[in-house]
């Protein structure tokens, strides 16, 4: 295995040479690119990358430009996972046959997909890759909406969010379904490493990415990606909103090892109320009307319950 990049602190990290380039067309303040930078900069290994259709892909491969300084492939909406799994299978076959031109170099295989591409439309492809046990990492850029096509709900959209296909209005408070628990689903595949990350917690992110890249087998990462356009907050507030998300425990940071052992990796010193997180975003604005108070109350109760569950699982070591 190749040597792990040493990243003791942020100053040391800032000497990284980015392999992701500017003048891509992502919105100002988009968290997708903050996540991609942190993932790519966590390693000096050669990278073979894929992306499913979505904001990241559409905005970083606008013909005749590419924003990627690594091998990168895009095929369709649903198959970032299988594109990279195919490359990984080919690499293994060539290695076995002794036909690799540079056999001493061991690239890492990483696929990026949005929540629409991962929780919904590419779900069976990801499931297949994990069942077959490819040596790859799959990273979801989870902005809880089909952002690139104008904000349709996905199975990652949380209760109460207003989207273009589940809009809030006179008769509805917006999304009615619970967010799908993808981490549990991927852990149930027996994945050796499953983790939730957030770009504001860069150190936790780097640790998990490094661990994931050093792990043999299919690794699943769910990265919270605050979307200024669809969550409706000002572009300069991407990190502030992300802090509210992790500190209210709406996005708890944890990992699951070998499909079972759960570790919480971030415990906020001051847990803030869920309504502080919701109130900072236009997509939840209507929840603060008196008739929707029950949705707010349910939100807090659900986050409390989920946090309790994570803590109990951690304690039990299962």
């Amino acid at each position, binding site marked *: 295995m190749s040597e792990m990049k040493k990243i003791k602190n*942020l*100053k*040391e*990290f*800032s*000497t*990284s*040479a*980015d*392999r*992701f*380039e*500017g*003048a*891509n*067309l*992502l919105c*100002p*303040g*988009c*968290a*997708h*690119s*903050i996540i991609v*930078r*942190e993932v790519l900069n966590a*390693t*000096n*290994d*050669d990278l073979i990358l894929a992306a499913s259709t979505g904001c990241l892909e559409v905005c*970083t*491969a*606008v*013909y*005749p*430009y*590419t*924003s*990627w*300084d*690594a091998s990168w492939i895009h095929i369709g909406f649903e198959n970032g996972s299988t594109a990279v799994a195919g490359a990984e299978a080919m690499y293994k076959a060539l290695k076995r046959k002794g036909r690799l031109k540079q056999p001493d170099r061991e690239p890492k295989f990483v696929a990026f997909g949005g929540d629409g591409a991962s929780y919904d439309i590419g779900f069976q492809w990801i499931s297949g890759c994990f069942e077959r046990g490819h040596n790859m990492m799959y990273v979801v850029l989870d902005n809880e909406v089909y952002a690139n096509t104008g904000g349709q709900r996905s199975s990652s959209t949380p209760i109460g969010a207003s989207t273009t296909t589940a809009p809030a209005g006179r008769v509805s408070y917006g999304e009615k379904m619970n967010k799908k628990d993808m981490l549990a689903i991927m852990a149930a595949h027996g994945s050796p490493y499953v983790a939730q990350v957030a*770009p*504001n917690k*860069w150190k936790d992110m780097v640790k998990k990415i490094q661990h994931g890249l050093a792990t043999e087998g299919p690794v699943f990462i769910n990265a919270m990606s605050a979307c200024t356009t669809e969550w409706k907050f*000002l*572009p*300069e*507030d*991407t*990190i*502030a909103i992300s802090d509210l998300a992790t500190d209210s425990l709406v996005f708890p940071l944890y990992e699951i090892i070998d499909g079972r052992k759960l570790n919480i990796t971030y415990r906020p010193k001051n847990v803030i109320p869920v309504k502080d997180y919701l109130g900072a975003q236009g997509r939840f604005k209507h929840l603060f009307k008196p008739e929707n108070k029950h949705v707010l109350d349910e939100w807090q109760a659900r986050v409390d319950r989920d946090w309790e569950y994570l803590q109990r699982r951690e304690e039990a070591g299962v």
Partner: protein
Amino acid sequence: MNNGWNDFEIGAMLRSFDGAVNGIATTLQEDRPYSKSNSFTASVADWRIEKPIFNKDYCIDCQFCWIYCPDISIISRDKKMVGVDYDHCKGCGICAEVCPTNPKSLLMFAEQEDEDKALAGWPEKEKKEN
């Protein structure tokens, strides 16, 4: 690259660099042979309404701006914040928002603002609210 829409290839391969680069992960931007199809050679400067201006007098080189800039537009070298890459900065304002110094070492100004004027009129240290 003068093809019309109908001439586009079904699949396209774009090269990030002209020629081979060895050890890309440790080669800084200034030492890379970027090709014309690398977006690094393009600019989004005209997206900006506001731009960040850097005042190095107050900077503590914490690198918060570097890690959270979505657009690789904070130039840091040898653990020091050097300046802003105005070809790729989209003016989102995250860097100024996360800068922890008092007064801030990065502030947003109207795109047409003169840098020397901005630096000359930099705000004083803010008193803590109690």
